[in-house]
């Protein structure tokens, strides 16, 4: 069985069926792209997968565990991590603390350890620092470790958000328009980073993106959404040459 199995996932807001009968199965190490015109329901699918919305119908199974009905934080602990279309960092914390916050469930000590700064606290904080710095190095952010997240340039904020998601040790990483607002050089760099993440952490990545260069450059499989329905699914080049997809994007 695949790592992530989603079967006839649907959600209605009042009379509007925002996502209708969405199916996907993603294997470990796979890079999957989710594309579609604006308002097609892509981010809604991310919100369904990560527990922000509760599906009206359908099932989501990650590594054999059903995620429907679980809260967002529980789903994260099951192995889903995500980034957001509009960046959501902890703006007033440093870059390092952003990552350390995401290590919350990996490295633990009690409230009493927190208040008394016991040897256990020191040892685990040290471990957290090491892991966070290692992760920041992968994203070339280690030099900015002590910068307040809000003061980072846009491109680095995007990277930090991905690094923070990875710090939760996910099985599946969901990236919501990671290249939005980036220039072509930054996008190329991002493509490398995404590939490196997959190779280093052996996780599955599902990404929403409008930048076709990025999508065709790294995705191994694509699913196209329009008005909440899947209109094409398969190998990237087959999908983008599909007449229905072209119609959805540019009209008749």
């Amino acid at each position, binding site marked *: 069985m695949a790592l992530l199995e989603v079967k006839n996932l649907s959600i209605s807001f009042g009379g509007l069926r925002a996502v209708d009968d969405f199916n996907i199965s993603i294997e470990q190490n796979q890079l999957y792209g989710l594309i579609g015109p604006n308002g097609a329901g892509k981010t809604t699918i991310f919100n369904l997968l990560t527990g922000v919305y509760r599906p009206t119908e359908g099932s989501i199974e990650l590594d054999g565990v059903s995620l429907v009905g679980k*809260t967002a*934080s529980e789903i994260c602990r099951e192995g889903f*991590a995500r980034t*957001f279309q509009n960046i959501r960092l902890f703006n007033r914390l440093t870059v390092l603390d952003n990552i350390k*916050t995401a290590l919350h469930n990996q490295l633990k000590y009690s409230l009493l350890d927190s208040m008394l*700064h016991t040897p256990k606290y*020191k040892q685990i904080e040290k471990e957290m620092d090491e892991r966070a*710095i290692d992760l920041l190095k992968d994203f070339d952010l280690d030099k900015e470790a002590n910068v307040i997240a809000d003061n980072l340039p846009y491109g680095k904020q995007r990277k930090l958000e991905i690094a923070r*998601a990875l710090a939760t040790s996910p099985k599946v990483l969901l990236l919501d328009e990671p290249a939005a607002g980036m220039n072509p050089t930054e996008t190329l760099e991002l493509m490398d980073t995404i590939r490196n993440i997959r190779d280093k952490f052996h996780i599955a990545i599902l990404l929403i993106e409008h930048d076709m260069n990025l999508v065709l450059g790294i995705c191994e499989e694509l699913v196209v959404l329009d008005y909440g329905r899947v209109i094409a699914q398969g190998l990237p080049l087959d999908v983008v040459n599909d007449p229905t997809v072209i119609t959805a994007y540019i009209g008749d």
Partner: protein
Amino acid sequence: MKNLLDKKEMRNIAILVVGYVFITILIKGGFLNRQYTSLLVPIAVNIMLAVSLNLVTGFLGELSLGHACFMSIGAYSSAIFTVNTNMPAPIQFIIALAIGGIFAGIFGFLIGVPVLRLRGDYLAIVTLAFGEIIKSILISMGSITNGAKGLSKIPLYSNYKNYTVVYIIMAVTVLMITNMVKSRDGRAICAVRDNDIATESIGIKVSAFKIKAFVISAFFAGIAGVLYAHNVGIIKPTTFDYNQSIEILVIVVLGGMGSIQGSIIAAIILTILPELLRGADNYRMLLYSVALILIMILNHSKIKEGLMENRTLSKLFQKRGGVQNGAS
């Protein structure tokens, strides 16, 4: 353990020890008249109240207008205990502290529940109402609390003669909250303030940490209430009305949201200032208000900015040192 205390903790403890020595010299040397000696405990109480409120307002980012209510619960529950029981003073006081803190903590949990559904100004009104409800309950439960007349003859366990005990309790409170802010729990609380959706998305239960912050804040406010009750000897429900809550909030805002040092300095200044102005007699409250406005303006001036930058610079510097040690 080679590095049991890091630089920053050593510095904090050193400052607290110097503060203690300074106060001892002032008292033993006879530099303080009766009026100022009587301010020592109120200063400690206000520091504890401000630092604990800062946890909710500055770090969790929720406006609470009912902090005096937690103080009143600590004061009343402990005073009812000490007035009605008979046991050796130190034991009785230790139990009183525990009772005050725990009862206030329970009420912190109760008020934490609506916090999960409300934000910002709505929450502020709820906390305000909560404080008034507690005040009314204290007045109406006459058989236990002696109603509007208040409880009297509370043993003076925490007056200026026992300033060492008060100082230690204050210092421990400040250290515990300072430590907590720089930890796993503190980071989670700040994360909730900065972005609750992202906090939930990295596997941290937002509701749990909102309640945690309220309970811890209430616990320490309750302990401050115990010190207050056993300093003045008489407590009335009206002492803990919303004016008192606002006063604590003023200290926190003046000292800077999310700055524990700021809360401490502001608590000292704002407790002493009204006494300094006593000579002005009728104009006292007017001068106090003007002084408040001036301090607030200064707070946003270039001078303060310069000072802040220096502090953040040194903070960054220390932190960087820590990280390098960790990474190597």
